[in-house]
């Protein structure tokens, strides 16, 4: 597929053209930092720096709260799904890879989650690679990288005066058909930027070994040691682009059955009607989170369930650092 080019002076014009047929969702400035939302003007887009959003854009496909059914007289009706096509512009490769991972849960042909599926079917993901890695990111060690391609329809590399636009799927290619082609020098420059983006000291994590070591540690007290300061909040999992757990709740006053994000870090998450809780303390709950990312995902998809975005590290109120925790448990580094 032919790489294309958007000159910086033509950026606004190019994006504006998409408004006709697409809702465009992109990173903008907000009170807490960068936030993905639907834009009405290309000038709102904030791409500078290597800062990703605090709130992950997974909500584009799995909103934090959504109505599954409106219920009238025991009749369950699915609400109409977003009729317009959407472009998610400016996702970072770690988050695009998360969408790619979540497709294995929600987007399987024989077992499709309609809500996710309908949103996904109508959306294109245009990622912007990170010329220099963000402070706490380690995407390059867990199977992706600052210019990782998984999950994106188009991958953009920022050059001095232009964006180098690399289509990765036929849908992506179709969208940028009319853009001018990039020339060889631009191609070479893009390659240089991509190469220069990784941190040299980082090494690929030995995922099979980490998985094995985590299983070995399953019944030990190490989980209590590493989780002692954990508060049991929803920060690390709600902000994680690959965490997908949800709760289903009936809101009687609204006549709706809804689903909300949920998390294994909450005490009530797995408490049973009998009062029994299979994960009674933070130790078991932390074990679930770490093992899900670095053992169960590896079992099921041969890939790390952590894309290395670093959000849980930056935002944990007690600075529990998943890299340090994994290392303490397995004596193996993920960075």
């Amino acid at each position, binding site marked *: 597929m032919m790489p294309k080019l958007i000159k910086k002076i033509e950026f606004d014009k190019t994006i504006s053209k998409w408004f006709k047929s697409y809702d465009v969702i992109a990173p903008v400035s907000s009170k807490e930092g960068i936030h993905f939302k639907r834009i009405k003007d290309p000038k709102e887009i904030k791409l500078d720096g290597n800062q990703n959003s605090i709130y992950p854009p997974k909500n584009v496909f799995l909103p934090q709260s959504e109505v599954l059914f409106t219920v009238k007289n025991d009749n369950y009706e699915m609400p109409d799904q977003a009729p317009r096509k959407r472009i998610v512009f400016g996702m970072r490769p770690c988050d695009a890879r998360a969408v790619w991972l979540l497709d294995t849960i929600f987007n399987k042909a024989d077992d499709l989650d309609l809500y996710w599926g309908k949103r996904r079917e109508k959306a294109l993901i245009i990622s912007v690679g990170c010329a220099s890695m963000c402070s706490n990111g380690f995407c390059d060690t867990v199977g992706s990288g600052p210019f990782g391609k998984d999950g994106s329809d188009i991958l953009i590399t920022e050059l001095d005066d232009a964006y180098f636009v690399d289509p990765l799927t036929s849908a992506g290619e179709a969208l940028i058909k009319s853009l001018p082609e990039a020339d060889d020098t631009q191609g070479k420059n893009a390659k240089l930027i991509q190469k220069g983006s990784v941190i040299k000291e980082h090494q690929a994590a030995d995922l099979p070994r980490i998985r094995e070591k985590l299983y070995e540690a399953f019944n030990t007290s190490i989980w209590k040691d590493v989780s002692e300061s954990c508060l049991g909040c929803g920060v690390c999992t709600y902000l994680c682009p690959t965490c997908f757990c949800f709760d289903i709740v009936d809101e009687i006053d609204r006549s709706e059955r809804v689903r909300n994000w949920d998390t294994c870090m909450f005490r009530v998450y797995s408490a049973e009607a009998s009062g029994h809780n299979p994960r009674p303390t933070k130790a078991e709950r932390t074990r679930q989170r770490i093992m899900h990312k670095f053992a169960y995902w590896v079992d099921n998809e041969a890939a790390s369930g952590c894309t290395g975005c670093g959000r849980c590290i930056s935002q944990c*109120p007690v*600075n529990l650092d998943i890299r*340090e925790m994994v290392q303490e448990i397995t004596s193996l580094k993920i960075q």
Partner: protein
Amino acid sequence: MDDFSQVRKEAARILSEKIVDMVIGFKQGTIPLKSQPMFITSQEDTDKLILDGFCQNNLAVFLHDQPKDKRIGIICRACESRAVRALVIEHQVNRENLYLIGVPCMGILDWKKIQDAADGPVTNAQESGDQILLEIGDKKQVLIRNEFIVDSCRGCGHREPIDVDIQIGEISPIEMNADNLPQTWGESFKSKSADERFQLFTEETERCIRCYACREACPMCYCTECFVDHIAPRWSESMVTPGGTQAWHIIRAFHQTGRCVECGACERACPMDIKMVYLTDKLNDDMKKEYGFEVGENEEKQPPFATITLDDKNRFKY
């Protein structure tokens, strides 16, 4: 604090003399601008203890999970000491089993504000007197410390740790709320009209993602079942909608009336940078005005909203 080694020594002493089984304090974080709570059971580890403006949690929160009969030493800034007293009054901890090491506090720093003010990703940060020294890769940058003290610490009215077993270091008279600083969020909120206040409240709560980090970081939120987790009946909308998030913020604040120790741990834990101390501050002010009650001030008095007496002016109505 200039000479923290005394605190380390005291922690080591109470461990070695078996006065306590564990000491709760802070250690260096894994990333710049952060620290980690630390649970020490062996003397050697007391070397790792630190205390600086990046220690953003209220350590008293960790007492909730500990058995009541465990003997625990805890490094106490004023806020921690007030939280311990409030927990004692509410019968959540056993004062005899605690050993409080009082330390001075110069106000907690807002790491997000520092990161925003820095010229790039901070790779190292140190406090030095009234300055914050930053490293951004090879570059260096200096910030004025006072400008980055969190709102809840500015104008702090109770800097003296209370009821401690030992006080180490002197409480500095330095003012944390310098005149040249803009009004805190809470002060400017107070000066607004009701409509404007509601608008601000709406703007703050609409970012809430209901992760409950504020609740979990709060030393006074210890209910085994929080009202938002209750399913039958449901007390509030479960969703991240204005109805759901506003109910969360209002009811949370009311449950803290006369109980909130005003440490601001909730705000600092919030990933979405949502203001909330102004709500409990206001309710605490009302408690002072209407009932002459101030949290932590007295050793026995229960918060007015948590007590019933036969001569109460108003009866409960159903």
